[in-house]
């Protein structure tokens, strides 16, 4: 067996490992093993790659490869280890973006190597696809990171003639791409790459913070496709399989997520969410004249302590306050008193689907106390208290009742059906989607302002003395 055949066989095994790993990641029982399997498969495949004589021909190149890998690992391991669970989404965004960047760079270098010999049109097409998709993913992920890290506003960014500018950039990219295809010119390819970066930025800017999770999933899928394109340019089946697996499953995951928000993917990406939000912001003035009822921790503690059934509805506010442990403490305390308690988890609570589950799992909340939205909603009408901790949009009845609202049609947790509603909120500021919540003004609603961890700690004390 030749060396090349042997390497290909090892790559095949790695590809099988990836498929099994993805399958494992879909079940709670095997997920961790699945990830370890994928990591092992990747390590073997990367190690095997050094068996190619071409990789070792130039010792300078080999040394640079190893240096780059060491630097990369030295940055990545501590970053991934130290990141807070709440900052997980932007970490995934950035790791995804650099993957897209790497794929685009591969395509560019292949083109630089082959350009003097005027490559076949389909070769150039492969390169163009990798460059375009990789650059969009890189720049888009960077903006998504900035939005989630709050380096820039999470609101949709709109500016005059946005549609026109987008159209001009898109047309220019198509023109440059065709030009590159015909001429095989390096400057044209570089221009395509730069403009693709611009496209990535302007594609993500108008997408509101609440929709960023869907976006990250989509960009993850894009990077997969860019990697598959690199596989085509390098004639490497492993990259094609791994990239395509991620590309296909990522698109499916993206669709599941937009479905959870009751909207089509096109609607998430291209709806003028921005303009509607500004209208909602303007309505704030009328909102402030309405009265809300705020309660003391003691009042609410008594309400909770003597309830029969309490549903905790956690949102991002719980996550930023790192209050998941305190929430569990409160739940445990209530359960000791014989109160029935469960957590109702909206599919997009937090900032990525399943994000809230991860956070609560960190606080050792048992699975059986977590109920998905569909399972929780039928029980809401019989709940004595819906305790909304740092959530807003996911319980906003406007999604059911106000056809003009930007979140109209999004499934929500029916907190409004509970006997009493308690909001733990930092302020009257609207949620991530930037719209008012009528539920705050409801007669059944009591508000307790403050950092979620502080207010929960006060509630724990109040319940203890109740």
């Amino acid at each position: 067996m030749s060396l090349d055949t042997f390497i290909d066989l090892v790559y095949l095994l790695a590809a099988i490992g990836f498929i099994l790993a993805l399958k494992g990641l879909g079940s709670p029982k095997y997920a961790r093993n699945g990830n370890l399997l994928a990591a092992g498969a990747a390590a073997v495949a990367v190690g095997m790659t050094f068996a190619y004589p071409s990789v070792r021909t130039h010792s300078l190149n080999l040394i640079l490869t190893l240096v780059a890998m060491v630097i990369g690992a030295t940055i990545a391991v501590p970053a991934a280890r130290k990141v807070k669970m709440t900052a997980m989404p932007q970490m995934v965004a950035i790791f995804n973006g650099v993957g897209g960047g790497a794929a685009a760079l591969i395509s560019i270098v292949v083109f630089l190597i082959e350009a003097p010999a005027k490559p076949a049109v389909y070769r150039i097409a492969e390169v163009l696809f990798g460059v375009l998709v990789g650059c969009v993913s890189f720049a888009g992920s960077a903006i998504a990171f900035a939005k989630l890290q709050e380096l820039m506003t999470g609101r949709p960014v709109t500016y005059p003639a946005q549609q026109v500018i987008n159209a001009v950039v898109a047309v220019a990219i198509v023109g440059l791409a065709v030009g590159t295809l015909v001429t095989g010119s390096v400057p044209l390819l570089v221009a395509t790459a730069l403009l693709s970066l611009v496209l990535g930025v302007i594609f993500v800017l108008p997408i509101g913070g609440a929709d960023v999770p869907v976006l990250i999933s989509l960009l993850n899928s894009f990077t997969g496709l860019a990697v598959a394109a690199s596989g085509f340019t390098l004639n490497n089946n492993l990259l094609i399989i791994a990239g395509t697996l991620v590309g296909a499953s990522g698109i499916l995951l993206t669709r599941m997520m937009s479905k959870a928000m009751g909207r089509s993917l096109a609607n998430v990406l291209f709806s003028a969410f921005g303009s509607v939000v500004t209208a909602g912001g303007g309505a704030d003035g009328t909102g402030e004249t309405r009265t809300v009822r705020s309660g003391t921790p003691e009042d609410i503690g008594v309400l909770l302590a003597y309830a029969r059934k309490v549903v905790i509805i956690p949102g991002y506010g719980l996550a930023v306050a790192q209050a998941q442990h305190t929430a569990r403490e409160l739940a445990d305390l209530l359960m000791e008193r014989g109160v029935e308690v469960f957590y109702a988890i909206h599919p997009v609570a937090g900032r990525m689907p399943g994000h809230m589950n991860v956070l609560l799992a960190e606080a050792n909340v048992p699975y059986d106390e977590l109920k998905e939205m569909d399972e929780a909603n039928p029980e809401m009408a019989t709940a004595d208290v819906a305790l909304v901790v740092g959530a807003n949009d996911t319980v906003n009845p406007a999604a059911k009742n106000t056809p003009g609202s930007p979140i109209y049609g999004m499934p929500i947790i029916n907190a409004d059906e509970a006997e009493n509603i308690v909001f733990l909120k930092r302020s009257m500021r609207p949620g991530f989607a930037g719209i008012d919540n009528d539920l705050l003004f409801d007669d059944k609603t009591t508000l307790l302002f403050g950092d979620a961890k502080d207010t929960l700690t006060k509630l724990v004390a109040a319940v203890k003395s109740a």
Partner: protein
Amino acid sequence: MSTGILEFLTVFVLAAFVGIEVINAVPSILHTPLMSGSNAIHGIVLVGTILIMGEAHGAVQITLAFLAVLLATLNIVGGFVVTDRMLEMFKAKPAERPAKDATPSDESGGDR
């Protein structure tokens, strides 16, 4: 068009179907780890960057390839570590409820 590209296209199409089939029934609690895990898997682009570095000549190509290896390493290493950290929390269902004093909750100053 060479037959080579056709073979690769075949692999591509089949992999696309496998990708869709394999994650068809994922409970939503695992969506985040799944996204993160698949993010790590496309980090295998590192293999491609190593190969391209072997072919690179001249300062421009080598610099770009160096950057590519660096970025791909960030993707693959960071991706797997982050995913493992997430999944660590899903390990073994907590059999018995840990005592309530296990939660450090009294440090004030958590407010920002």
